[in-house]
């Protein structure tokens, strides 16, 4: 029994030698936290009555979660059937006349909850990468040059606290004006969400990188000077490694912001994604809506948490200072 428990706990990164005390600490305490939360939720939910009925408790939410999965599977089945029928039809056509022209039409079904999760994830990662691609190099350049730093710092400080909701109308207008093409590679809504996310999550990475770069120890700079390292070698061998911890602090903050901003932007702009899902359910106003929204809330939280863990893992991988405790 205890050996099974040990095996189960291994992937959680728990120490090999588990005594009772550490087992309680590692498992029982968080578990009881969750249980207390579920209890309060349950009791609270029963006492909140909305125009759409009682606020959903844990059980209803669980049911809605299963429902959403079911809907997704049904939709996938429909899609598969659709293509099957089309293939059959085309095959028959070809049998009669090998020269016949074949048309393959795409399936245009409703986006399910799972599809929306996928869309949101792709958008947030794209926006986050775009932002990092700008913020890290810009942070390095600004951090290495005091004049540039003083020049740009006020601008950065000004834009850093701006809410995504303020950017969104501007971005939407600009994207519709500038991004015109007959056969666009990406949907406009995707570009709008991406730019909004980037604009909001750029700043923590930019600032942290700049600070990390500008606080490199004078001794290491002197080593670089004595060796007459070229600018590029200096940046690659000395600047980036010593700024890595700060860069990652920034990246983790940025990714967290990106995820929060994306949901808000999708909701407001009606761009595909989890935000739109929540908004649609809210507009639907069926008796299940609140439960379904609650599923989305939990999923959003879980994904945000997982994104942060992934960044943490990456940080641990590239960090040279193994004694530093990362959490």
């Amino acid at each position, binding site marked *: 029994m205890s050996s099974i428990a040990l095996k189960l706990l291994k992937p959680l990164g728990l120490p090999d030698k588990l005594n009772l005390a550490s087992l309680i600490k590692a498992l029982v305490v968080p578990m009881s936290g969750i249980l207390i939360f579920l209890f309060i939720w349950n009791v609270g939910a029963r006492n909140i009555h909305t125009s759409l009925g009682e606020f959903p408790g844990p059980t209803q939410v669980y049911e809605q979660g299963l429902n959403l999965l079911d809907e997704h599977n049904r939709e996938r089945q429909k899609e598969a059937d659709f293509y099957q029928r089309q293939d059959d039809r085309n095959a028959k056509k070809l049998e009669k006349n090998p020269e016949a022209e074949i048309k393959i039409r795409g399936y245009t079904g409703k986006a399910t909850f799972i599809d929306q999760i996928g869309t949101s994830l792709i958008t947030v990662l794209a926006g986050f990468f775009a932002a990092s691609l700008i913020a890290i190099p810009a942070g390095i350049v600004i951090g290495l040059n005091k004049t540039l730093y003083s020049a740009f710092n006020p601008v950065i400080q000004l834009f850093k606290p701006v809410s995504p909701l303020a950017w969104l109308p501007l971005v939407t207008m600009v994207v519709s004006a500038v991004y015109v093409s007959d056969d666009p590679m990406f949907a406009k809504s995707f570009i709008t969400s991406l730019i909004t996310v980037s604009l909001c999550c750029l700043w923590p990475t930019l600032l942290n990188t700049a600070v990390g770069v500008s606080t490199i*120890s004078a*001794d*290491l700079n*002197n080593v670089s000077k*004595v*060796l007459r390292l070229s600018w590029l070698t200096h940046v690659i061998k000395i600047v980036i490694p*010593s700024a890595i911890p700060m860069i990652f602090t920034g990246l983790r903050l940025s990714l967290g912001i990106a995820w929060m901003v994306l949901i808000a932007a999708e909701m407001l702009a009606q761009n595909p994604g989890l935000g739109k899902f929540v908004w649609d359910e809210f507009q639907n106003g069926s008796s299940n809506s609140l439960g379904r929204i609650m599923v989305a809330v939990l999923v959003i939280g879980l994904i945000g948490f997982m994104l942060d863990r992934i960044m943490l893992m990456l940080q641990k991988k590239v960090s*040279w*200072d193994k*004694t530093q405790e990362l959490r």
Partner: protein
Amino acid sequence: MATKTHLELTGVDIDFPTPSGPFKALSNVNLKIERGEFVSLIGHSGCGKSTVLNIVAGLYQATQGGVLLDGKEVNEPGPERAVVFQNHSLLPWLTAYENVELAVKQVFKNSKSKAEMKEWIEHNLHLVHMDHAMHKRPDEISGGMKQRVGIARALAMEPTVMLMDEPFGALDALTRAHLQDSLMEIQADLNNTVIMITHDVDEAVLLSDRIVMMTNGPAATVGEILEVKLERPRHRLALADDPEYNHYRAAVLSFLYEKQRKPVEGNAAPVATDTKQNSVAATAEETAAKTVLADEQAA
């Protein structure tokens, strides 16, 4: 014999800009150093030893006067004037080997093949007895080992002049004695020109051909120069009772604690300065005693 001076500082002044106007740290520093000479700089804390070294390294620019190395003016840092920093200054994300490699790749990128570089890196780490731990990172090795790697890195650049800023300052007496011996061996082999800053009178006498004693700042300059004519190779144990050795020691001590004793009255922080000087004197004496003791035990 030598037609031209190897390294020459002439009339070096330096002013540091401070909020309350320029601060003259050095004034009219003149010094000539021959090829292969081992010179140490000694003086009270804050007098400007590191500043002199940094000017020779090219990290600071003299406000007036300048430095000539083999007839060429020094105005930027370069690997021919390798520096061993007081706090090792190894890149913490690289292993000992990689730290030396960074320097070797930079200096010999056009003149050595990959295999030759590897051999050269290993050779230099071997010189400082770091073969066994060359693939460890700085946080995995002791302070003395880090300092060794710092020395190996400097040696590997094949510098014309080695500049060492209190290379053993942060080490315990036993480790320091070991490293001093290693340094003397290496110096006997390679015959580098070395300028070393030290606070330790014994270290200065044991290692140097000449000891340059600096006056107190501000506007510090070269006070006296003491030529140490002890036979090489030198053995610390044999020298401990040597009257000549003790004579040199006494000369340096008297310069530091009699001639350059800071006036107590009128000083901004008289008490603090005074205690500091006394404690330095005490440590110097103590270290000497400890070093000898340690060697006796080792023998």
